[in-house]
């Protein structure tokens, strides 16, 4: 019987900083055991539990696209209170960590086929959304999806994630990338303003469009209200939630929203599902 608590061993192949404050790093991992790499079939929006033996374990969204076979990427923010994130940030290329996954349901990429996609990402929650963008813009999949609109919001230019990827995405056809920061800053050429007002300005028509939102709770709330005003279908607004997790497989009883577990039945829920669940005040 497969032991769901035993992590696979992976090695750090590349680390680069994602923001000026240097508390956000993207780690590239390669699998030590080749058939682990084969079994690790994931879809956009899924996450994995990264663990350092003797320190602990925590869930992180997979930032790389499923089409990328050789490595798997995570963007991790160092929290002063976070024992594991601090230890991860102290690691260097070549160190080994444990990895458990892929976990969670991820975005319903099959259901979204043939539809337009609106991505709204706030701060460093852009990780799994970048995975979606890379997957959709990959040459083998581009034809399955309609127009891609991506709104990336951040507090200031130094905090904007994956800027080189986004310049790459802009070149793709039928794709529009909008970057916005809260307050004006010099040599910032893109938009300025909070996510919700900018979203109201740039949002595509709700017809046949799925909206994928992920970011700090206040941003999710304001942007969802905007989308509801533009009468987006509540079934097509998808949120990726985040809660404290221990087992990641729906056993340890802590990450539930209503009777659903964020780790096993989530982290992606449609707004319609969330309305149903939180009527039972799940949080």
């Amino acid at each position: 019987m497969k032991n769901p608590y035993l992590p696979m061993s992976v090695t750090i192949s590349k680390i680069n900083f994602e923001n000026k404050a240097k508390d956000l790093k993207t780690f590239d991992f390669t699998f030590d055991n080749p058939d682990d790499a084969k079994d690790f079939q994931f879809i956009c929006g899924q996450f994995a539990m990264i663990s350092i033996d003797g320190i602990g374990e925590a869930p992180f969204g997979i930032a790389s696209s499923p089409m990328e076979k050789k490595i798997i990427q995570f963007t991790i923010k160092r929290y002063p209170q976070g024992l594991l994130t601090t230890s991860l940030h102290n690691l260097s290329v070549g160190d080994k960590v444990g990895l458990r996954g892929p976990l969670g349901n991820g975005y319903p990429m099959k259901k979204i086929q043939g539809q337009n996609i609106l991505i709204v990402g706030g701060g460093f929650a852009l990780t799994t959304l970048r995975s979606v963008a890379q997957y959709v813009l990959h040459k083998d999949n581009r034809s399955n999806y309609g127009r891609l609109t991506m709104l990336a919001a951040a507090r200031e230019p130094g905090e904007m994630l994956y800027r080189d990827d986004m310049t790459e995405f802009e070149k793709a056809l039928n794709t529009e990338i909008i970057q916005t920061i809260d307050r004006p800053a010099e040599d910032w050429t893109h938009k300025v303003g909070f996510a919700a007002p900018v979203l109201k300005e740039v949002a595509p028509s709700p017809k046949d469009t799925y909206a994928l939102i992920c970011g700090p709770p206040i941003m999710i709330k304001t942007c969802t209200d905007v989308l509801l005003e533009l009468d987006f279908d509540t079934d097509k607004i998808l949120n990726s939630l985040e809660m404290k997790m221990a087992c990641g497989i729906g056993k340890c009883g802590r990450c539930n929203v209503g009777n659903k577990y964020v780790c096993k039945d989530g982290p992606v829920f449609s707004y319609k599902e969330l309305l149903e669940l939180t009527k039972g005040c799940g949080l």
Partner: protein
Amino acid sequence: MKKLKMINKKDITKLLDELAKNYRLLAPVEKDGIVNFTEVQNGQDITLDFYNSKEPLKKLFFPQSETLYCYSKEQGRTVPEEQDKRRKIVFGLRPCDAKAAVLLDNVFDGADFKDPYYLEKRENTIICSLACNEPQTSCFCTSLGLGPGDKDGSDIFIVDIGDKYLFEAVTQKGQKLLDEMTGTYEPEDKDIKKAQTLITESENKIKKQIETACLSEKLDELADSPIWDELAEKCIGCGICTYLCPTCHCFAIVDEASDCKGCRVRNWDSCMFGNFTLEASGHNPRPTGKERMRQRIMHKFNYFVKNFDANACVGCGRCFRNCPVHNDLIKVIEKINNAKSEPKK
């Protein structure tokens, strides 16, 4: 292959001595006034005259702290093996604890992920449960669809009919063990009838009831009701109700390290503790006692019902019997059932 067997009360110690030879026998033992299931080498120092054990059977299959794996530079990650592989017998268990094991199977033997640690111990154990002739005033198992005579979850079901015990094999495992037992004889009809009357008598002795018919829907309506402030006001937020509850299964995973080797350990955790959902960013979705009390009741009587179509409660009464402020679950459920739900804002 007889399903029913009798044994005289005076021979029970001899029977247990034999069982202890080739099985690991766990039986109720009293120490400073507290009865708990402990491993015994013979039948001498056990007591079958008790209401219920202090700690539930879950401690056997889902121990309070269990090493998931050890790691070291040389061997990498190794899962510890149980040295003594002999099968275990739990003798004298109460029917509510046996039923609790079936409820826990929903979680640890799930369709999606199976928990190898739990299942290995679960299969390796034979449960011989003893019907309750004397339920406690705080028992309310009859309102959860079970009772002093409920056989669900037991491999052998025992009824104490005065000077003799009636053994009944409920499962294949139980039948195999029953055939191995010596010193048993055939029961007459009057013994079987007497066992039945004793059980119905015992069922009528249970006075406390909770109404669970439409409890799940009622709880959905009371999501944001202020009733939870009132229910949680006196609670001091300790872990007794969840640690001594036979169906509570929440746990935390922690790493224990000393220089370059150590192990990853799974410990019981409680939704009533403050840092159960505290995130590294400092945000806590359940910051006060109110949300935690709501989560505890919701998980047992609403979410578990929606996920597994059963209440995660067996009516054993341990939670309020041991609670320092006697937070009576019977009264809590009563208040919830009678609470009027205001219209959704």
